[in-house]
């Protein structure tokens, strides 16, 4: 295949360089070249959201982007959430609310939630539920996940921001 190129990215504040063919997915580059395996790959076609990371401030599915497109980008992943071994408040809430079982979707859930709570203007329960439907979990039925993200939104924006009807629940796309 086409010759490999050198790619430099800043991952969780650390400047890292690796090599990738133009066709290499960003998710594979992070995991296999840079050995940052906290980000998971669940479908490789952009549906499940397990590979969600934050690139230059936006949540992105790293299985739908080539590594070469990320050259020079600033990337946040699950490995960067904790500070000096102290879990991020959202990570603590996930544990308290039993928002994970197998933990495979958790990297994408956490990064989706961080993006949703910090980058969106609507923090109503309904908006949180719909926002979190960007990532799939097969274990929990989302009960603990939604509770954890709502509590995190209250911590960040105050109780008043996280009120209103929880629309979204019980709908299905059948």
């Amino acid at each position, binding site marked *: 295949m086409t010759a490999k190129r050198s790619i430099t990215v800043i991952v969780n504040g650390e400047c890292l360089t690796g090599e990738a063919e133009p066709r290499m997915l960003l998710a594979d580059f992070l*995991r296999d070249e840079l050995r940052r395996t*906290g980000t998971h790959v669940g479908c490789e*076609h952009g549906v*499940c959201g397990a590979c969600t990371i934050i690139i230059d401030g936006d949540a992105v599915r790293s299985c739908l982007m080539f590594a070469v497109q990320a050259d020079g980008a600033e990337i946040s992943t699950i490995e960067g959430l904790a500070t000096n071994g102290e879990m991020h408040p959202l990570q603590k809430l996930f544990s308290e609310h039993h928002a994970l079982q197998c933990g495979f979707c958790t990297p994408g859930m956490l990064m989706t939630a961080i993006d949703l709570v910090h980058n969106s203007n609507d923090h109503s329960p309904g908006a949180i539920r*719909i926002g979190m*439907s960007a990532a799939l979990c097969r*274990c929990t039925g989302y009960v603990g996940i939604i509770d954890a993200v709502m509590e995190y939104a209250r911590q960040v924006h105050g109780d008043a921001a996280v009120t209103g009807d929880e629309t979204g629940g*019980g*709908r299905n796309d*059948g």
Partner: protein
Amino acid sequence: MDDSVRRESGGYIGQSVPRREDKNLLLGQGNFVADIQLPGMVHAAFARSPLPHAKIVSVDVTAARAMNGVCFAASGDDVMAALPPINGMQVVAPQGWRDRVDTDILIPDQPLIPNDKLRYVGEAFALVVADSRYIAEDALELIEPDLKALQPLPDAESALVDGAPLVHEHLGRNVAAFLHAKKGAGAEGLEAASHRLKRRFVHHRYAAMPMECRGVVADYDTRTDTLTIWSSTQVVHWVRREVATALGMPEERVRCIAPDVGGGFGGKGHVYPEDILVAWLAREIGRPVKWVEDRHEHILNAAHSRDNIYDVEIGFDDDGKILALTSSFLVDSGAYTPVGAGIAGNSIAHMLGPYHIENYETDCKVVLTNRTPNAPYRGAGRPEVAFAMERSVDLVANHLGLDPAEVRFRNMIPPEDMPYEVGLTYRDGVAMIYDSGDYPSALRSALAELGGLETIRQRQKDALSEGRYLGLGLGCYVEGTGVGPFEGATVKIDPTGKIMVATGACPQGQGHETIFAQFAADMWQVPIDDVFVTVADTGHVTQGYGTIASRSTVTASGAIKLATDEVHEKVFAIAANLLETAETDLELRDAGVGVKGVPDMHVSYRDIATAAKPGWGHQRPDGVVAGLEATSYYEPPTVTWSYAANATLVEIDPETGQIAIEKYVEVHDAGVLVNPKLADGQVKGGLVQGLGGALLEELAYDDHGQLLTGSLMDYLLPSASDVPPLAVIHQETPSLLNAFGVKGLGEGGAIAPPVVIANAVCDALRPFKAELNSTPVRWAEIAMFFDQNG
């Protein structure tokens, strides 16, 4: 986690102890199969059949093998020559069951890679190994298969037509198993019934679909002639056994580890060809080999489930008392039967559910077709049979103009009849006895949680007068859990005084390390952090069975207890020696042994472990052998019976047929709950999978045997916005069959939702006498009732 939780409550069992599994997973430090990278590792990929049924004329891997970066390629012929099939590797039901249930079973052996013909879309016909997965997939493109399409058998009914082609010619038929069971007068019981109804119920095909696909890494060490396999599996000991057998190695020279496993739900509950092939490749090539399934491959090739057709006849009297029930059902097993007739056996045993019914007769055909193999998925035969049964109960109620809740109460086994002899044989070969429970109370609680039956019916009436359609859906089931044959555990006291526990259980997110630590901490009277648990590693416990069939809490706790009891004996003997006291005066306390009533007289486990050491200076009494370690196997007498009542309230949109679920309730009883928060999580997770099966998920095939739903864009998993408000209420009726009173609960949640939703929709559409007797429940079908009734 400090000691305070235990001291305040008297024990860890029953406490929502935080999960010790969470930290690594939350920090991004989990270790899943795909995360493993070993020096010199190469990557396998499989060429898979585009045809459902095809003769293999030839498969040429020469060009693939010659490609730069490829180190190995093999066709079915190559694999067959190196690893000839070994008969009898398939699961066989116990003799006790085969004796009591009429059976005629012919299980086809599954080739690792076939060289004669291909039997489903996705079956492998060749493999390559290369420096990267990217190169391996490039090389797949160079493989030249010459396949001659054969007439496909796209479903069970087509496979039963006279003169239909055979999926496995040597079997001489397309039926892997005929099963028959009877209670009381069987079908003759229908004669006495003043009312009889006959219906066909269809439960469609869907699957476990864990978020992590399957994967295997294997590494062979030439010097020690040992293989280490990391597999995303629920059954490490089974993988070890099959790999050792296929490769002609002693089991002790094969170690299988399931590292962090990203969900299983039954889909990873048996050995797949890739488990054996990747191990073989590592030994053959002399380098570590990795294979990670991609999602498309998973949907084609990992086991599917459900896919049953039931023909039911139910006989009842004017009061709605069910007198007799017959069912004749087909299981579309796909091309192979990875767990034999296990799913059908479950269905036969679970049809009567929580009801007292004198006469029952059922027969089943497990049918071979050109679909992906069908293996247990959460519920394993129970959601299917619960759909047929609980729809039937509603039809009885509708026929007589009774409330479906009332018909259930009239037929339920009352709590005073517990333990209750069912009159059938479970698939472990033992006569079925429901050990404990209060079924009517569960249904009453479920109705109360929705506001009570009268209120619900009033609301429904009021709504209808406004042109709104509300429906109440009910569904009850019982579930045999904690099935044998056994589970193994090793318990040791480490020289540091810490308690080491290893079991054959293989979790995929259930929290086993936490709950087994709860059990052991109580058994040893230590802070929970003094207990170290190892799971899913054949290197730590000689024999194990694995985590399938809602069994690990029951069976592993039994094994941990037996091993602990054995070590306790030595600990007391040595402590008596050290404290110069009679054993009867001693008790376990404060991470050691003390003299009852004498606070100062105490020796720690660390001191006892030192005294127990072999060699000079030991302090064991005469007759006590060295070491503090035991391995035990718990063989449960039979299953223990969990059960639940489900209820939901839905509103149907007459324009679109859309179903809005106001609330979904499950009242569940799994005996004593070891960790209520984790138990709750299991049931809720199961409910949402059940709702997915009811409304969204479908593995659809066309008439030619092609799978139409090959991505997660076609196969719809429930997302957060699909989940209605859920309420789970736990009754805790202890099991009579084990020391802790526990029952299993992994699967239960997924059993009832399909029928509960169907019943709710039919209840809402009662003005139209609508019947929905198949899954998934589709909006379009609902909207049709409104169209037809103007």
